[in-house]
């Protein structure tokens, strides 16, 4: 063992392994340090037999290790073998706890006190982090574990699960699922409610509690862990229960603290930020490099390429082009001017104001998730009312915004370097106006994910986009005739307010005088009539409210509260009044809007006097729907159970239009007043499912649908993130015999989703790949005729609705049969 290595590689995921293999191949003195007793822990922990994907397919693999799509076991075996063949110097069971020193002379400390010296460090520790450990006396006993791979493994034990999130609940349910295992399972929750877990999981847990299968201890903390016992602190004092095994699922600590502790800066305070990096992956601490998922590249292929690259850079190869160079070259090929990839990257970075802060590496990454296009004068870039959640930036040229839908000749220019389309990004709503190129123009279209990442990492970009958004939203909302100058006073005074779900923004009877614009989320308007809050109306993102009290100086006549977590912009009422005074036309508009809102309110109030029960029904139905996700939906399937005969033709039609799997569970879901919200995608304005998808496979399509494309790698993150449980993970079933051969000869399983057994057996017989991928409703995009569930319903029970149209008195109080 040399006393100082040229490079120490921390973490043996695909990134670290590939780096170590290349170092070994190049004869560089190195050591690979891994916390666990095996290589590549993240992949090791995938479900057994998982099919691992090798996306993006157009990216070449540059590594001394092999990698192609295949079974988890095969990939891990290949790597184990090749790491041995390459004679890589590996040290297992060594968790790095600190890195100190300077470039050329680092000291790496490990748990247990051992140290290693190295000239350079490559950090490839991924993003999984460390599970939070119990901190009670006895927390180091061996019967405490922080993960549960197979709940079917344990028999006849007293098991205590600590933690009240989804992971803990799912573990507890798994351990108690089969009475034959004969486990006595208890779950501890510090609080009285299971607020952090999904409603569906909580319901299952409560059911298990009622059946006596799980012992649920609320407001209970572990006090001390002993051999075969655990001491608990409960509301009624200390209790000791038998306990053979403890499963602690109290979340995990992201690795950020450790990384910052090594002197490495991140791009911002946001949770989603990454370390600041140079093009050769060097951090702000010279000599320490970061690659892989921790650097923001969660796909295995990216990780492996970076492992190779970082070693090349360390060996002084400055000429190396990143492996994604050909992908970028292809993107830029469509642009005029014959510039090289680096030249184009610089043009975009220098010309577009919000990108100036980015490093060349970040710029590259952003570009991979973006599209570029060139337009001639007069070309349409997008059309009013197109759905779209991407944001555009102008690298060269300028565009014209058609501000008046009735007269395309009324336009407002947006110049080089600026952005447009940001409203779709921020509110998830359709495009507000048509935009044309004013001259020869080169644009960059940032996908929603890329744009959000940019806003999270570049604070100045965030501020700039916010300001522009507020200004444009005002101009758009109040119609033509206004100029940026008119609203500048309002924009200056604007304040962005985050509102948690259910919180009031305006209280009935109060006499504050602000007005609000909903930027994200939605609001419901309620009025207290006869002691009960009555639902008056629903306000989607892009609407304004609070103007009544400002205009006529009255007290607030209704309560406005957030239907879901929302973002509103608050403006002082007097500035708004001054704007009205200066613009008689706008004043007229505002008065008309106000009158029509008054009319709706008066209508409901009047009904309340004469048809009290109809209004109560309307009000409670509307609230039920909002509680079930309509407040953030753009398009949702409802089933009127006063018509539904339970034939399940809707599910069958869904399966038959989509490769044989139904994306809708008609029976499951909540029902109120015969209105049923089945388990099916709501196409949320800001889809939770998109948050954490390694290949960015979840997108919003041209009809507003949220869909998953073919790059899905089956990691299951989206399934965990969707609060409505509408995503399923299943392999694509084999093709069925045709309808006629079923009808006449009974061939195959018939219409609708084939049974699990049939799918599995037939796929095995045909030798088909059985990779589980995420599937969900895509609103039958690309299918002529529209959503099959609705077309195939014989009775008219299945309807698809947009919330702002459906949450109205006329719709909810109508009687259908």
């Amino acid at each position, binding site marked *: 063992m040399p006393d100082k290595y040229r490079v120490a590689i921390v973490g043996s995921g695909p990134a670290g392994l590939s780096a170590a293999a290349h170092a070994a191949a190049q004869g560089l003195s190195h050591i690979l340090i891994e916390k666990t007793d095996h290589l590549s822990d993240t992949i090791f922990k995938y479900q057994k037999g998982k099919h691992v994907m090798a996306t993006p397919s157009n990216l070449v693999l540059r590594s001394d290790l092999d990698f192609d799509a295949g079974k988890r076991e095969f990939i891990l075996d290949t790597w184990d073998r090749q790491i041995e063949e390459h004679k890589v110097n590996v040290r297992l069971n060594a968790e790095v706890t600190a890195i100190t020193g300077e470039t050329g002379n680092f000291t790496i400390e490990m748990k247990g006190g051992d140290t290693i010296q190295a000239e350079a460090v490559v950090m490839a520790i991924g993003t999984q982090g460390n599970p939070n450990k119990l901190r009670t006396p006895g927390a180091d006993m061996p019967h405490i574990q922080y993960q549960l791979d197979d709940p079917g493994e344990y028999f006849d034990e007293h098991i205590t699960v600590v933690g009240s999130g989804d992971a803990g609940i799912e573990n507890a349910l798994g351990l108690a699922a089969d*009475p034959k295992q004969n486990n006595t399972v208890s779950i501890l929750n510090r609080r009285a409610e299971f607020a952090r877990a999904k409603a569906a999981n909580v319901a299952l847990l409560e*059911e298990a509690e009622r*059946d*006596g*299968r799980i012992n649920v201890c609320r407001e209970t903390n572990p006090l001390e862990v002993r051999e075969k016992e655990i001491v608990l602190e409960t509301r009624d004092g200390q209790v000791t229960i038998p306990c053979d095994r403890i499963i602690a699922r109290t979340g995990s600590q992201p690795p950020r603290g450790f990384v910052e502790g090594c002197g490495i800066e991140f791009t911002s305070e946001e949770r989603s930020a990454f370390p600041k990096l140079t093009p050769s992956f060097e951090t702000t601490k010279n000599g320490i490099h970061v690659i892989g998922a921790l650097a923001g590249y969660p796909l295995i292929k990216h990780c492996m390429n970076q492992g190779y690259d970082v070693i090349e850079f360390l060996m002084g190869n400055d000429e190396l082009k990143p492996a994604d160079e050909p992908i970028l070259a292809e993107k830029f090929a469509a642009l005029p001017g014959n510039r090289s990839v680096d030249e184009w990257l610089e043009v975009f970075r220098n010309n577009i104001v919000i990108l100036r802060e980015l490093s060349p590496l970040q710029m590259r990454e952003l570009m991979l998730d973006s*599209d570029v296009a060139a337009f001639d004068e007069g*070309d*349409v*870039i*997008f*059309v009013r*009312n*197109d*759905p*779209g959640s991407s944001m555009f930036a102008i690298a060269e040229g300028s565009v014209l915004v058609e501000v008046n839908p009735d007269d395309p000749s009324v336009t407002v220019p947006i110049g080089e370097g600026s952005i447009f389309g940001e409203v779709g990004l921020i509110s998830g709503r359709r495009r507000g106006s048509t935009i044309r190129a004013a001259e020869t123009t080169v644009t960059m279209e940032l996908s929603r994910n890329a744009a959000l990442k940019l806003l999270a990492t570049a604070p100045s970009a965030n501020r700039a986009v916010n300001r522009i958004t507020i200004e444009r939203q005002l101009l758009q909302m109040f119609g033509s005739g206004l100029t940026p100058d008119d609203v500048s006073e309002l924009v200056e005074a604007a304040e962005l307010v985050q509102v948690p779900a259910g919180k009031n923004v305006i209280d009935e009877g109060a006499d504050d005088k602000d007005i609000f614009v909903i930027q994200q989320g939605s609001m419901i308007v309620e009025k207290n009539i006869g002691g009960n809050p009555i639902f008056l109306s629903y306000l989607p993102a892009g609407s304004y409210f609070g103007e009544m009290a400002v205009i006529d100086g009255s007290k607030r006549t209704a309560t406005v509260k957030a239907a879901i977590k929302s973002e509103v912009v608050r403006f002082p009422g007097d500035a708004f009044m001054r704007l009205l005074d200066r613009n008689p036309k706008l004043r007229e508009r505002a008065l008309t809007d106000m009158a029509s809102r008054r009319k709706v309110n008066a209508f409901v109030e009047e009904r309340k006097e004469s048809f009290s029960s109809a209004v109560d029904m309307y009000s409670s139905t509307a609230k039920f729907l909002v509680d079930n996700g309509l407040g953030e939906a753009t398009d949702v399937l409802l089933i*009127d*159970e*006063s*018509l*539904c*005969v*339970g*034939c399940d*033709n809707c599910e*069958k*039609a869904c399966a*038959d*239009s989509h490769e044989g799997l139904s994306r809708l569970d008609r*029976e*499951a879901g*909540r*029902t109120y007043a*015969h209105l*049923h919200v089945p388990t099916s995608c709501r196409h949320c304005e800001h889809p939770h499912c998109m948050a954490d998808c390694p290949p960015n496979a979840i997108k919003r399509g*041209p*009809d*507003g649908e949220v869909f998953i494309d073919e790059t899905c790698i089956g990691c299951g993150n989206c399934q965990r993130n969707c609060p409505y449980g509408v995503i399923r993970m299943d392999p694509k079933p084999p093709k069925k015999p045709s*309808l006629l051969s079923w*009808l006449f000869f009974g061939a195959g399983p018939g*219409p609708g989703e084939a049974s699990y057994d049939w799918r599995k057996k037939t796929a095995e017989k045909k030798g088909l790949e059985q990779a589980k991928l995420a599937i969900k409703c895509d*609103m039958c995009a690309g299918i002529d*005729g*529209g*959503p099959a569930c609705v*077309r*195939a*319903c*014989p*009775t*008219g*029970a*299945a*309807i*698809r*609705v*947009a919330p702002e*149209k459906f949450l109205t008195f006329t719709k909810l109080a*109508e009687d*259908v*049969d």
Partner: protein
Amino acid sequence: MASKSDFAYAEQRRDTDHESFLSHKRMRWLKVSVAICLIVIVSYFLVDVEPRHNGGTWYGYTLGTIGAGLIIWLSILGIRKRNISEGRWSLKAWTSAHVYLGLALIVIGTMHTGFQLGWNVHTLAWALMMLVIISGIYGISVYAALPRALSTNKREMTRAQMVEALAAIDRQLETAAQPLDRKESDAVIAALDQDVFRAGFLARLTGKYPRCATKRALRAFPDGSINKAEEKVSSLLNRRTSQLGQIRRHMRYKALLEVWLFIHIPATIALIAALIAHIVSVFYYW
């Protein structure tokens, strides 16, 4: 990127009217059907054919052709329902037209016969047609009446959840029955052993289960004279009864909603066969 998608189109393809199949498009097909019936009835009395109205006159042929065409079209609903092809069709519109035009067949078919019924293949075809129609009338009456009851009975539970709830009660019963004496525990075991889903056709349709072992087991625990363990079992048996009740009502409503199709569809097939025999024989003996 410019997208060509047109907002109005997108709206149209998403937005569906909240309207039942019976009132689809303000009863468009009811109106069509009433008009057809009126025309047929009025023309029947206006048209003077020799020697009298029957299937063999030009007027009879006309009605016969229309009727046979309608029957074929009505039968195709079974394929339309299962062939989820692309295109702007709606099964609701089809069902709506099916129901009202199917009813019009009573007039068309009967006027076609000229009321010349007898014991022959021709009248068999007419009778089968009437059977299909009558079963269809039963069908729409349950379609109109039962969904609300089905929905109310579900209390937001899926079928699988109802079965799971029953299994949960059974697990508790099994444990609770341990301390009981032989006779009582036999009654409980008999209740647990009875397969809930092996119900006869009649039981399913009526919702009456005279041989229900759970009810019988309850009789082993009369109110008043029972100890703590027995009380627990008896209350669990009561819960089991009510859970069984929900499942049985669910099965009953589903059965009532489907049973008529077991007449409607086979009778349709028989009708088509009889129709072919009827047409062939008419031309053969011409």
